[in-house]
């Protein structure tokens, strides 16, 4: 430790340096800087004026955009991490190898920023440890969700340790950490299974408030299946984005395997989506909900089922059969949008369907902006990780 750092002159020089760097950064990244600036401002508002200062949440709709986007969508889309890790380590699908770390890193950041988002969402975030360590309400679906977020974050962190140790040059520790890969992949998959279905069970208890077309006793299963295919589609989409913007951090192997990974994911997504579609249609008939199909909600339901489930299934059928990578990628995007639409439908659009329109909720721009702010932070963190750590490439010392 160099104590000279603390002297006034050096500090001044540092601040000056920092100012110059900051100015240069703002000049080069105008949009990102604007988002960060406004986001920080809104964060200050949230913690000085309370939740009411930045959101339209009210007593009838205690969970709004944050819950739908940050928690329900965010966690579903983060499922790719454990799916890819399990595919590679447990089921031995070799060509997923170069993707494992990328998927784990995005999942870890997804969960990490989900916890950050919780600081905005709950009224007293400093008490978030109470349910885990002080007074666990074990009959609550939310308890299970919280427990899984906590455990999974730890598992994901340990799963990423090899990359961290490679970056830090700790050879022996890295070897020890790699040794656990399979066990951790299994543990991660188990926690993720419980976690995703627990999210689906959140709305079981609110049955009178959720429109029958979206309420189902099978919501835990539906959420689980859809999260797996959403996660795999996110692997495809992350691939598209990473190839566009982070290619300089990739190695040959990663680039070479990309198309194979897209096809494998496409195949898995295709099968899972058929099962999902099947359950939803059976559900529609078994719960006697066909009567609602002619209403406005029914039309919207059909848009979701036909446009965002049946259509990608059809496109994937062609895409995977004829090995048309582009088509598979397009279906992946539609699928992810469909899963997000489903989560928004369950938690906002079909929620409180009984209430008159003027008592219903619509998000404020500030709520949406805080989520955008958090996603931006996530992307920056991911970029930093890829730049510093061997995520999209193998470390030179450990190649082969």
């Amino acid at each position: 430790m160099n104590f000279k750092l603390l002297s006034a002159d050096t500090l001044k020089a540092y601040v000056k340096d920092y100012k110059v760097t900051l100015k240069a950064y703002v000049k080069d990244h105008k949009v990102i800087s604007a988002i960060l600036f406004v986001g920080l401002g809104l964060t200050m508002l949230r913690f000085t004026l309370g939740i009411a200062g930045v959101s339209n949440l009210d007593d009838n709709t205690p969970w709004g955009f944050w819950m739908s986007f940050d928690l329900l969508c965010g966690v579903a889309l983060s499922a790719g991490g454990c799916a890819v890790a399990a595919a590679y380590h447990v089921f031995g699908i070799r060509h997923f190898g170069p993707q494992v770390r990328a998927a784990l890193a995005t999942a870890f950041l997804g969960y990490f920023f989900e916890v950050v988002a919780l600081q905005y969402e709950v009224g007293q975030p400093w008490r978030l440890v109470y349910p885990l360590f002080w007074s666990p309400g074990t009959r609550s679906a939310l308890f299970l969700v919280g427990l899984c977020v906590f455990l999974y974050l730890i598992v994901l962190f340990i799963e990423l340790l090899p990359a961290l140790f490679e970056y830090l040059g700790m050879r022996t520790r890295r070897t020890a950490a790699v040794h656990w890969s399979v066990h951790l992949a299994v543990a991660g998959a188990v926690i993720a299974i419980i976690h995703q279905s627990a999210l689906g069970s959140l709305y079981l208890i609110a049955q009178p408030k959720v429109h029958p077309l979206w309420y189902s006793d099978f919501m835990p299963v539906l959420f689980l299946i859809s999260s797996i295919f959403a996660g795999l589609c996110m692997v495809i989409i992350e691939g598209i984005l990473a190839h566009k913007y982070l290619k300089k951090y990739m190695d040959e192997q990663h680039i070479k395997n990309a198309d194979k990974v897209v096809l494998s994911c496409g195949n898995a997504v295709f099968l899972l989506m058929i099962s999902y579609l099947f359950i939803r249609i059976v559900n529609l008939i078994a719960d006697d909900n066909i009567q609602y199909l002619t209403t406005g909600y029914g039309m919207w339901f059909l848009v979701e089922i036909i446009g965002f489930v049946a259509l990608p299934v059809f496109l994937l059928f062609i895409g995977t059969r004829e090995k048309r990578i582009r088509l598979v990628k397009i279906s992946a995007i539609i699928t992810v949008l469909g899963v997000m639409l489903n989560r928004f439908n369950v938690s906002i659009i079909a929620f409180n369907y009984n209430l008159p329109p003027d008592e219903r909720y619509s998000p404020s721009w500030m709520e949406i902006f805080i989520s955008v702010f958090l996603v931006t932070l996530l992307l920056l963190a991911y970029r930093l990780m890829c730049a510093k750590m061997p995520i999209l490439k193998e470390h030179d010392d450990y190649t082969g």
Partner: protein
Amino acid sequence: MHRRIFLSLLSVAGLAALLDAGDGQAASTPPSDKYPDAFGVLHDSARCIGCRKCEAGCRARHADLLPEPDKPFDDLSVLEKKRRTDYRCYTVVNKYTVKGRETPVFRKIQCNHCLEPACVSACFVKALTKTEQGPVVYNPGLCVGCRYCMVACPFYIPAYDYGGVLNPLVYKCDMCAPFIAKGELPACVESCPKEALNFGKRNDLLRLARERMRTHPARYVPHIYGEKEAGGTSWLYIAPTAHTALGQQELGASPLPQRSAGIMEAACMTAGIAPVLLGGAYLVRRRRDEIAASEREAAVKEAVDNAAAETAAKLKTAAEEAAKDKETAIAREVKKAREETLGEIQAQTAAAGDSGGNASEAKTEEDAR
């Protein structure tokens, strides 16, 4: 090491379930039998005149928590607008104009203190509890502010102080639990001038409600709201008109917590079974890989052996062929030499033929042979 991780993961989930085993079992007993001596309140809309005295009484008793309202309690103009409970009031009275009735009908809104409360089951920090006496009470010292109770409540009762920064809390009627415990009445019941509110044991109130319906069948629709709704509530309602017209949603008789009652058990089962299945899949895959590897090794060895044998065989054939070639070459050379000699001799004979004749020709042929 890995085994220890697994075990600890399992035990966290398992312990969590054990901690609450008592409550979990209680969910299976019929709700009304759980606390047979629990108190409740009966609200009779046929008697209610919408005077808001109950609201005033509630505020007076909870003056430490609830602020002065914007408009005084004797201002009845607020009834023109539909209201709900919020963080400044535990109870409100709403006015409903019903088709076919000249006079409006009033209904009081507050926590119904369900027999199987969804909010209690939803709370992940046990800040809400159902007491034996009937009230569902809230512990502000534990509340994290997740607001899942508000999501779960089918009656839209718990409210949140969204403007709070340091200590925002959930607000809802506690049925004056501390006062009930002392043998006093809830504030609203005490302040009702029309006896539209009756306090007592829930079973007695059900009898009272039926009695009123029997004596005045024309004044009531034959339905006690809260007797069965969502598994039954401590508060009960009788009214001169259909309850749906008073903003009371039709609810099934099954308690809402039952819908998600099994998830902790299911999670523990998953935590127990899934590692076995995944581990099994891994072991099968590894064995398959091992077999494939050993097969590959064997194949390589065989290929090498085959190649060696093939080379030997090839060498042998090549040698044989070479020998054969040599032989043919010799034969060819011999033949060639003979033909050459023969040609020479023939040429000589032809030259000699002009002088020698047939006899000498025959002789030359014999020589050649």
